[in-house]
């Protein structure tokens, strides 16, 4: 599968990674190579095969509705790049929530 620059930009948008034009071109080529390799999975006839998302078969793992320890406000904010009024501060948000 050969990726176009436009496809690379689209994926970069989905992944929230800013790319320069140079990087876009470079990635288009590299990703195309990697995908061409990975596409070999398509050579396997696997129509009826059930996909595996968990390699070890477990089910019904849950916890009781009982309280556990929480972080104090200082701890929760300790690594924050920007804090205001006990909250994480971010620049203005453009998009509405999904």
């Amino acid at each position, binding site marked *: 599968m050969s*990726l176009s620059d436009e*496809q*690379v930009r689209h*994926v*970069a948008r*989905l*992944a*929230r*990674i*800013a*790319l320069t034009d140079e990087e876009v071109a470079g*990635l288009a080529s*590299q*990703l195309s*190579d*990697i*995908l061409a*390799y*990975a*596409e*070999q*999975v*398509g*050579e*396997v006839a*696997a129509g009826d*095969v*059930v*996909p*595996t*998302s*968990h*390699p*070890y078969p*477990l089910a019904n*793992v*849950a*916890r009781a509705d009982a309280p556990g320890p929480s*972080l104090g406000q200082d*701890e*929760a904010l*300790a*690594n*924050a*790049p*920007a804090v205001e009024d006990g909250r*994480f501060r*971010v*620049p*203005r*948000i*453009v*998009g509405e929530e999904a």
Partner: protein
Amino acid sequence: MPDDLTRADAATLLAAMEAGETTAVAVAEAHLARIRATDGALGAFLRTLDDTALAHAADVDRRRAAGETVGALAGVPVALKDILCTRGVATTCGSRMLEDYHPPYDATVVERLAAADAVVLGKTNMDEFAMGSSTENSAFGVTRNPFDLDRVPGGSSGGSAAAVGGRHAPLGIGTDTGGSIRQPAAFCGIVGVKPTYGLVSRFGLVAFGSSLDQVGPMARSVADAAALYEAIAGHDPRDATSIPEDPPPARPALDRGVEGLRIGVVSSFLDGEGVEPGVRARCAEAVERLAALGADVVEVALPHADKALPAYYLIAPSEASSNLSRFDGVRYGLRVDGPTTEEMMAATRAEGFGPEVKRRIMIGTYALSAGYFDAYYLQAQKVRTLVQEDFAAAYASCDALVSPATPSTAFGIGEKVDDPLAMYLNDVFAVPSNLAGTPAMSLPVGGDEAGLPVGLQVMAPHLGEPVMFQVAAALEASLGLDLAPDALDDAAEERA
């Protein structure tokens, strides 16, 4: 008991400490001194924790002297891959994104090491976010191979492998998602184990490929690896993928020998096209040795094994693309400011992630995206099922499987770093076990013509740790290899 404490393995050190022949503080100091003297050349550690290590060692000595209970690894130094959260201590994952990140909590494995009274000497270098096979993808410099400082130690757990191989610590902790313990273990001439998926808690392990990641032991002997495995394995209610049952013990299996065991050789691996002659030769000799020891050796096929690596390079990046979304400059880690949150996030991620991480995030995002999900991600998970079935069929007639751990010995620094696909091929024999979630380990079986270590991979079914360690221990005993503990000194001398 050698004069140089760094030449002793963990079992020897434990015995000596228990016998009063040495102290945990002396052991810690010896290793820290060696790190100071040689890690400049090797680059295994991102940071050492001298003060806390010595304080812990002193406490172990005090408790031992007072006859109090001490943990199973009391006083034994450990090198910890910088992907495991250590409370209040920088945990970078080899990335600029987390350069100043100090987790507010300890990983379960870290808690278990503390409970075992192992002495953590420091956090080791790694490929960024565990993505790589050479530790050249670290944002903080390369780590070198103790056997040849111009060669890579392998990756992504290259720092821990080099630390153990270079005698900076008798024990190391690594993680293995697509061979990242076994391949560096093979390259650095040490033992490295990827346990059954779910036996070792992932709570506090910064996630790369969640359905593939496992934490595992690295050591200079099979017995040491077994002891470390037992110390860290076990159910953890904070990890929903953690196996509820008690982990199968490894140490009782160590001296059972291989008489009567059915061992399958994955011939497509052993005789594979890209396998170096030296690797093939040492591995074939090891197989013959197993037969001579009484094992029933047969050839097995894993028909879908050649599709395992392609499948892995869809599944792992897909999971990674989601796992790494949290790194956005909001709650922790690097922030590159921008006029809007969207721009801030995109700029932060552009600067915080290295090229390999970006490639994998992009591949994964693409493989999960609308219109491509079925052909890529879903198809890869179907191939995964087929690989599991291949293993199940093989294990129906074999107790364990063997193959080379890697197609080659350690390659030169810089040699493959610009060719992602060539780099990926390092893990072609390792990845099937990650897909299947089955245990696998690498142990040294000799050197190639240049004296570079060759590793043999031993694989077993789910919860088959006992038979896996059993085979490895028997082979190790029979080989009687001197794991060239002077490798780093020689290499450093050659350089000087």
